[in-house]
């Protein structure tokens, strides 16, 4: 029995076990300290819908062997451009939402292609380079937000300043178009975001379909053994670029869905560290540097958002101080460090 438990912990990974029990503990404690469980769970679901797509966006690149996408910010930038342009064009409602996505996809294809080409030139060092490509493109876009000729009064600084505001409200454009779509309200406390979850499910389905095609199959083969794929006549570089483009597109859509639910488009340095929570969530769901599945996405996003939602409310109630930010940093970055050190051991 002891052996068995040890085996399970070994397979699942100690950090995951700890985090899982921590979350369970939080849920148990919640009613004790006077927090409504149903609202908490509802919050978790809403945040799951907000963030799930960003987590999903990592999957194609992991599958093709490019590792964890530390350059997720490129997709986010594409998404931001889409969102900002749709507001500039004054398109509202679902039309606005899909205009944003459409433009974002176009930008994401271009950025993804360039990004993928770069990653092909530096095989083996993808992650560290990607991190800084992500950072530098976010700071580059800061300059762009200042000088791009957007005119909409809702987006630029009110008194004569140049450049876009740091946060732009999307209310009146496409705020909550998904969240409120077919929303199910139970009592005063629960509002199930059917639209968001359906949209997430749709993307999951599309990704699933992609990996059932000839191209998707080739990408999986590259990820599990690039030499094998090459010997089977697969154009490894091309397939990797396709996976990077796909990841970038999904990330772009992901950030738009996030903003749609959140209510604001956050520009400038806001996207800087956005890759880390998404990566941590995927890893928490059981993925590793070289392997990830849709199951990992769903479990991971749920667990991670669970921690993020529950820690502030429960912990603050217990010790009367807000440790949640620190705990979030420790959990998410600790998970990533763990995963980075873990795979090497398995290989050697």
């Amino acid at each position: 029995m002891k052996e068995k438990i040890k085996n399970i912990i070994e397979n699942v990974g100690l950090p995951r076990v700890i985090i899982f029990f921590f979350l369970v503990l939080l849920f148990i404690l919640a009613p004790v300290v006077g927090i409504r469980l149903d609202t908490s769970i509802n919050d978790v679901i809403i945040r799951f819908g907000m963030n799930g797509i960003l987590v999903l966006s990592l999957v194609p690149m992991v599958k093709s062997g490019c590792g964890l996408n530390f350059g997720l910010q490129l997709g986010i930038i594409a998404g931001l451009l889409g969102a900002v342009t749709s507001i500039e064009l004054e398109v509202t409602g679902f039309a606005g939402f899909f205009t944003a996505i459409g433009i974002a996809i176009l930008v994401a294809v271009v950025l993804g292609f360039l990004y993928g080409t770069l990653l092909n030139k530096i095989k083996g060092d993808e992650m560290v380079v990607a991190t800084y490509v992500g950072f530098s493109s976010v700071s580059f876009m800061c300059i762009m937000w200042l000088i791009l000729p957007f005119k909409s009064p809702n987006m630029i600084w009110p008194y004569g300043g140049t450049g876009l505001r740091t946060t732009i409200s999307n209310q009146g454009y496409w705020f909550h178009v998904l969240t409120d779509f077919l929303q199910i309200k139970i009592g005063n406390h629960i509002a199930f975001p059917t639209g968001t979850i359906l949209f997430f499910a749709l993307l999951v389905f599309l990704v699933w379909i992609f990996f059932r095609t000839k191209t998707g199959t080739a990408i999986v083969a590259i990820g599990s053994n690039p030499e094998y794929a090459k010997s089977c006549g697969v154009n490894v570089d091309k397939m990797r670029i396709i996976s990077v483009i796909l990841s970038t597109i999904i990330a772009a859509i992901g950030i738009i869905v996030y903003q749609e639910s959140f209510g604001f488009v956050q520009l400038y340095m806001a996207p800087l560290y956005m890759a880390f929570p998404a990566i941590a969530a995927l890893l928490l769901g059981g993925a590793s540097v070289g392997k990830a599945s849709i199951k990992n996405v769903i479990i991971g996003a749920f667990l991670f958002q669970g921690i993020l939602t529950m820690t502030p409310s429960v912990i603050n109630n217990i010790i009367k101080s807000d440790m949640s930010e620190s705990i979030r940093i420790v959990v998410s970055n600790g998970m990533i460090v763990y995963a980075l050190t873990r795979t090497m051991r398995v290989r050697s």
Partner: protein
Amino acid sequence: MESKEKYLLKMEHVNKDFYGNKVLKNINISIRPGEIIGLVGENGAGKSTLMNILFGDPIIHETGGFEGKIIFDGKEVNFSSPLDAIDAGIGMVHQEFVLIPGFTATENILLTKEPTRYNLLSEVFGDKLNVLDRKEMKKQAIKAIEMLEVELDPEMIVKEMPVGYKQFTEIAREVNKKSTKLLMLDEPTAVLTESEADIVMKVIKKLAAKGVSIIFISHRLQEILDSCDKIVVLRDGSIQKELIPSETNPREIAENMVGRELVKDIWKSKEIRKFEETILEVNKLWVDMPGEQVNGASFKVNKGEIFGIGGLTGQGKLGIANGIMGLYTAEGEVKFKGKFIHLNNPKYVLEQGMAFVSEDRHGLGLLLDQPIFWNIAFTAMQIKDNFTKSLLGGIIKWRDDKVMIEVAREYIEALKIKCVNEKQFSRELSGGNQQKLCMAKVFVLRPEIMFVSEPTRGIDVGAKSLVLDTLRRYNSKYGTTIIITSSELEELRLTCDRIAIVDEGRIAGILPPTANPVEFGLLMLGKKSEAEEVFTDEGKD
């Protein structure tokens, strides 16, 4: 007692097995101080294991040690790590250079043995903080280099040295360990040109003259005949014969190395097949495959035959198939069905109708973490669009798992692959079954030429003949040309219609399987003068 004084090393009745597989049987060798012993044998004859035992390679201990007695310098020894062996006075020059590329010859010769100057900080942080005594280092290095009597600048950086100089540096490092009494060299001349090799051999002789005993492995017959005091020929883990160079000839050595006559009888009962049409013509092929470099090999293969490529490890036989299939950078002319084909493009070559079962099953033969049916169908899907359904007017090529599984089942049945079902991960299969899986992958493609490299490596005896039978049956059933590359001469002779032997990256000669094994041995040892060349139209300059 007298005899013990005379010998530096005595190995008595040494036996070694790896998991029940006997690799050394009753080895008795004795070496006098200053004696040079040449070790000759085919792949797997036990040369490396013998060296590993002497040098205390941890792998020997991990696999249960060895039986028998080794007396070195008057004491019975059993080294558990190379460091013990070095302390006792045994040096080893590996086939791969063990040198720090950015260091000078001096720094490499003295690596970890640097003389240092005392320093107060060492009292606190340990001896590691002593400062290197560069002057003394250079002095010692020069002394070691002088022992070799070669021109080697002690300040030269290894990265910038010609290969021969790197080898000198390695030897100098071993010599510098003052206690070195026995020096072992594993193919010290393999990567060198002829003139460089000559110098290395001279160095070895000089060292011997200074009292250092030497054991060296080589496949260059001339070297061995010229330099050794004694030649030990190993075959199948036992000493076949000890020969004295002045009293022997290349033929005798080759005979002792290969010497099996069983095969001829089998072939007596078989017909010698005749082929008319040439399907593949290789001319001056160069392949840049590390460790298996091909240096301008030329040969022709006939349609429908089973063509064997043999030779010793590291001579380039594996590079030929890998090069033609585009897995390593290749140059040269390859004509397939009379048409020149592009090299360095795996997809193109596969599309032309050639396919490859790699020697590296785990590396590029299989998707270990994917199910069996994926492994069987993947190549065909990518190359021929098999197993796909076009949806939405061809925009989406949907993977048809159902057909994949059906076909996989067929092959599991036909090749008798032992597995739970077609969804099992290929990692979980045994070596023999993995090999069958690799072949199934290629069979699905229905190629015109099939390259198979080391088909029986690492699989058990029963599975070996099964694999070879499968290949033969496939050949006769579909008339597919098969090119088998193998280290096992025996299996080539059993299976092939003609056998080419590769030496130094070129075809040394092509022989019928019925030829005298000695001829094969001579070719492997780089002596083609006496070999029959009836089958060899190419290969000459």
